[in-house]
């Protein structure tokens, strides 16, 4: 007997072993992905695990169903998907990274729905067990919510729709009714499975309603909370894949899906904690909607001192310790390269310059780190909240670049503030605080920032990129 024959006869065993190896590699990959030194390696290990899983699955399917397997469709699907995935991953700007993750995530959820539907529609006359049928329902439900929710998150971050929370009276009740509707339809699909056409109808209706539900669940959430939503939807797409694993009886789908689901939920929690908010508050709060309507009035600020690039350059020229606090404003104006130039100029002048990065600065956790790394800022210059917060007292100048809520002292001083208790960067402890901001408009929390009125604060009203370019020119002339 030739090797290929032995292999073909034992394909079940071979596939099982390869799946085990792939599952182990996924675990090692995720583990390594959570440490700076090994992260790049971890990603490659996960990719290898995925590749061997795909190859053994294709071989097994070919051996099991040689007459049925649709190679032209498989090859076409992989080629088309690879081209689109490659194009998106390589061409998209680093600043658009959050919405890209959202869209990839949505596709993963969508795929789960189609796989479960295809399985159910074409399983033949055999009835599924109740457990299997429940997992079909859950695949469709969770998968489609992931899909439509991710698309809304994408549209909000891309600016296709308003990033502000969109709420209307009775929205929670409507969502609740839709949720109950999907559960009822899911129940009907399970118990009426014997009447195939009914079950199909219920399943499709359920998928349609859950699609709308996914949209309605994400629209009330403000742009600043999108990272949490994407992390949560990422967890959902893992759970959807795991549910589809139950449908197909595929253990690797179950293991990989639940790994992603569980780690995604942890990541969501870490991110909520950084904002000092509960997940429920993020999901149902409509945060920042009401306040922002009242506090856009600039007149409520008093004793604002504005400054110019020349003045700031002169202050910086004498500074020994400088900390730069980047925020979403830096991402919006693509100021990372201009910031790097200022960073280099200051370092040449002998100043010690560091970056203080708040866990929720920007639109994704680590958003600022990615942008600064893209601009070649050394990694050891980027400090997180805990490691830098005590240094502000010894700092001569803090430059706040398009950040707002994460440096709002109300979080520690004003018990009535909606952000009270959120850990902030204690920038007000520095000798001089320069705030680079286009206007006095509030950040995403929609509240006033008393930092702007402080004795040691100077406001530089400008676009972050222009401000940094001008500042660099002035610094070089000194």
């Amino acid at each position, binding site marked *: 007997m030739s090797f290929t024959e032995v292999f073909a006869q034992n394909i079940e065993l071979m596939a099982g072993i390869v799946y085990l190896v792939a*599952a182990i590699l996924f675990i090692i990959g*995720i583990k390594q992905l*959570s440490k*700076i030194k090994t*992260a*790049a390696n*971890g*990603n490659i290990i996960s*990719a290898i695990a*995925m590749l061997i899983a795909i190859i053994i*699955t*294709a071989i097994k*399917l070919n051996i099991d*169903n040689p007459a*049925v397997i649709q190679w032209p469709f498989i090859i*076409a699907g*992989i080629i*088309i998907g690879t081209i*689109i995935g490659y194009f*998106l*991953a*390589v061409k998209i700007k*680093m600043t658009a990274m*959050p919405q890209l*993750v959202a869209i*990839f*995530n949505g596709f*993963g959820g969508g*795929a789960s729905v189609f*796989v479960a539907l*295809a*399985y159910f*529609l*074409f399983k033949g006359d055999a009835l599924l*067990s109740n457990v299997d049928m429940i997992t079909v329902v859950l695949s469709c439900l969770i998968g489609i919510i992931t899909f439509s929710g991710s698309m809304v998150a994408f549209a909000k971050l891309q600016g296709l729709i308003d990033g502000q929370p969109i709420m209307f009276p009775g929205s929670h009740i409507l969502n609740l009714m839709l949720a109950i509707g999907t559960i009822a339809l899911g129940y009907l699909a399970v118990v009426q499975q014997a009447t195939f056409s009914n079950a199909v109808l219920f399943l499709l209706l359920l998928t349609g309603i859950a699609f709308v539900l996914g949209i309605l669940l994400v629209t009330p959430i403000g742009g600043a909370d999108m990272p949490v939503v994407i*992390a949560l939807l*990422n967890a959902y797409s*893992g759970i*959807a894949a795991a549910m*589809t694993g*139950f449908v197909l*009886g595929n*253990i690797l*789908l*179950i293991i*990989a899906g639940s*790994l992603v*689901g*569980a*780690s995604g*939920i*942890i*990541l969501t929690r*870490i991110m909520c904690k950084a904002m000092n908010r509960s997940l429920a508050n993020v999901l149902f709060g409509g945060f920042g909607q009401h306040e922002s309507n009242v506090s856009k009035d600039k007149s409520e600020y008093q004793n604002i001192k504005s400054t110019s690039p020349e003045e700031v350059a002169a202050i910086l020229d004498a500074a020994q310790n400088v900390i730069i606090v980047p925020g979403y404003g830096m991402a919006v104006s693509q100021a990372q390269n201009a910031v790097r130039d200022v960073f280099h100029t200051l370092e040449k002048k002998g100043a010690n310059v560091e970056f203080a990065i708040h866990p929720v600065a920007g639109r*994704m*956790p680590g958003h600022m*780190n*990615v942008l600064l*790394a893209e601009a070649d800022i050394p990694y050891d210059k980027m400090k*997180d909240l805990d490691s830098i917060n005590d240094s502000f007292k010894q700092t001569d100048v803090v430059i706040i670049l398009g950040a707002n809520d994460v440096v709002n002292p109300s979080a520690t001083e004003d018990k009535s503030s909606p952000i009270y208790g959120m850990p902030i960067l204690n920038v007000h402890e520095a000798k001089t605080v320069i705030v680079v901001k286009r206007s006095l408009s509030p950040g995403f929390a929609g509240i006033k920032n008393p930092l702007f009125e402080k004795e040691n604060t100077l406001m530089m009203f400008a676009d972050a990129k222009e401000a940094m370019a001008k500042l660099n020119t002035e610094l070089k002339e000194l």
Partner: protein
Amino acid sequence: MIEILYLVTAFVLACFVGYEMITKVPPTLHTPLMSGTNAISGIIIIGALAALAYVKNPLANIIGLVALIMATINVVGGFMVTNRMLRMFKK
């Protein structure tokens, strides 16, 4: 019935592993970690392959093809974009 129990066992244990694995992650890695695990959830690609291997039927093939394209975008795009982010930290 016993087989579904094996699958549930794998599900529960993998949930625990996923839960315990992510404890201390530096904020820098939050986005790459999210993006990398997102690529792993593209494992649904093997389900999409299966959907194209069990029936010969135009509708089934179209559904399977759409699933496969979506899953492949998730996998290829996800790993590549994660790699692109992480490469920047290496410099």
